[in-house]
């Protein structure tokens, strides 16, 4: 039945599908098999491949610094390739720290004492007005709405105050939350969500039944009117809760159209346990999540990304967390390792895996997740 090759070639038609017409799903199959430099080359071949490259989801990178960095050089660790790339960025000097990343933008703070931030994406950059405080290790967020298509930058100044910078107005405005915020802020369905905790009468105990975890909601159009969604923790009979430890970090994350809270806990600065709760916004309840299924969560103190493991051919039900600098110091003291930008948990498992950068002996600082 099969024709010899020569005949087949004669048969091949003209004017049907050609390379630039291949559907996105096929181009993504190819892209997933290429390393980062080859992906960039792929995107430079023709327009439709360029678009495919831009839309193709890949694992986030980790951006980090050596303790002493060469001027204007940022190093990026690519999770899919397990390689370190160097990136030249003008306008950024060696003392700058990348304090936040979202939508391909990186927010840098060039000076440790004042917040004169620079927003960088590819070769573009925007210099923000100077503020008289440091936002180091507080979260920042970049998002756009229909009314602000140029984008809005959100900066958490303290547990009660935040700033909004509308790119079209080029000015910061300060606003207040009504509650004390204890987590990062996420942009979800046009609104800003953060976690606030109401402690019960027995303030000394860190017991879950003694606390109400509430969601504080801000509409970017009316930033002075914060609303609070009072949530109850719903426990089924067989739900096992981790004992609450003194040292805890809460990270909010949007995953598959739902809000999750990841509670990370530890002792003496070292984080080693975590559990996850899902917000049921119709019942106003937190439900304990036993498994994340296909999802991988990439978290840090100020940012959160949810990725499908199947699309990346990785293992699901995993949490990857970049500890705060003090937590990383604890890792250094406990394990004597300096190049450990992130840790891994399997939800429901007991073990925490500490990840190191391969062939890298410098002390890494200022780590953040970066989605291309």
């Amino acid at each position, binding site marked *: *039945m*099969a*024709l010899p090759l020569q005949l*087949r*070639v004669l*048969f*091949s*038609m*003209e004017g*049907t*599908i*050609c*390379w*630039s*017409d*291949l*559907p996105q*799903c*096929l181009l993504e*199959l*190819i892209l997933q*098999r*290429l*390393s*980062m*430099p*080859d992906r*960039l*080359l*792929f*995107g*430079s*071949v*023709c*327009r439709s491949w*360029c678009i495919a490259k831009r839309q193709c989801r890949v694992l986030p990178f980790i951006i980090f610094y050596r303790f002493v960095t060469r001027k204007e050089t940022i190093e990026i660790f690519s999770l899919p390739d397990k390689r370190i*790339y*160097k*990136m*030249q960025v003008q306008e950024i000097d060696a003392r700058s720290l990348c304090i936040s990343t979202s939508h391909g933008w990186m927010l840098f703070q060039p000076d440790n004492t004042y917040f004169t931030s620079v927003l960088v994406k*590819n*070769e573009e950059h925007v210099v923000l007005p100077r503020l008289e405080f440091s936002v180091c290790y507080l979260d920042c967020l970049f998002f756009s709405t229909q009314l602000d298509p140029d984008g809005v930058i959100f900066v958490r100044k303290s547990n009660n105050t935040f700033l909004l910078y509308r790119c079209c107005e080029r000015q910061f405005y300060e606003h207040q939350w009504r509650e004390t915020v204890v987590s990062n802020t996420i942009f979800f369905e046009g609104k800003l969500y953060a976690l606030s905790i109401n402690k019960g009468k027995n303030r000394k105990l860190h017991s879950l039944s003694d606390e109400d975890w509430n969601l504080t909601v801000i509409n970017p159009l009316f930033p002075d009117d914060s609303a609070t969604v009072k949530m109850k923790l719903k426990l089924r009979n067989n739900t096992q809760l981790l004992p609450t430890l003194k040292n805890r970090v809460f990270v909010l994350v949007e995953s598959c159209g739902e809000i999750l809270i990841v509670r990370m806990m530890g002792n003496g600065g070292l984080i080693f346990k975590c559990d996850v709760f899902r917000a049921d916004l119709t019942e106003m309840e937190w439900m304990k999540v036993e498994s994340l299924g296909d999802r991988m969560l990439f978290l840090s103190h100020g940012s959160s990304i949810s990725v499908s493991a199947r699309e990346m051919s990785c293992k699901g039900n995993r949490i990857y967390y970049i500890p705060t600098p003090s937590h990383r110091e604890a890792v250094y003291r406990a394990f004597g390792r300096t190049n450990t930008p992130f840790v891994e948990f399997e939800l429901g498992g007991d073990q925490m895996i500490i990840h190191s950068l391969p062939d890298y002996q410098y002390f890494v600082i200022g780590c953040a997740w970066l989605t291309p």
Partner: protein
Amino acid sequence: MASTSNSTSSKIITLRSSDGEVFEVEESVALESNLIRRMMEDDCANNIIPLPNVTAPIFYLVIEHCKKHAEMKDNKEKKKELRSQGEELLKSDPHTYSNLMEAVNYLDIKSLMDLTAQWLADFLKGKSPRLIRELLKIKNDFTPEEEAEILERNRWAFD
């Protein structure tokens, strides 16, 4: 449909390509395609199954690859043979290769989608955009300004 389940493996499925050619294919080979499987489940299998998006020469290629792929499961030699044939086609007739990828995608044959994508990815590795365009006969539809911008933007990755 009950009669199909206890038939032997040599059941023949009849398919018609977009240019009207009729193919008779063993059921086991045809079922590699999720599209054909769905059509058979929807009870279209008693008639000739039309494949309006696949031409005869491409369909020949698909069937041939399907058969080889079924044979190669435990056979390293066959695997190598299929791979070198794929590479040969990519070099000699990239246009047909792109049609093969598209047809495999349309017929929803997961194993061949992965294989053809892997061969192409291996082929692209380390090649410059200009060389890729030349080898695969892809038209450069960027304006000179866009191209310069992309080059400038990607420069850091190649230092």
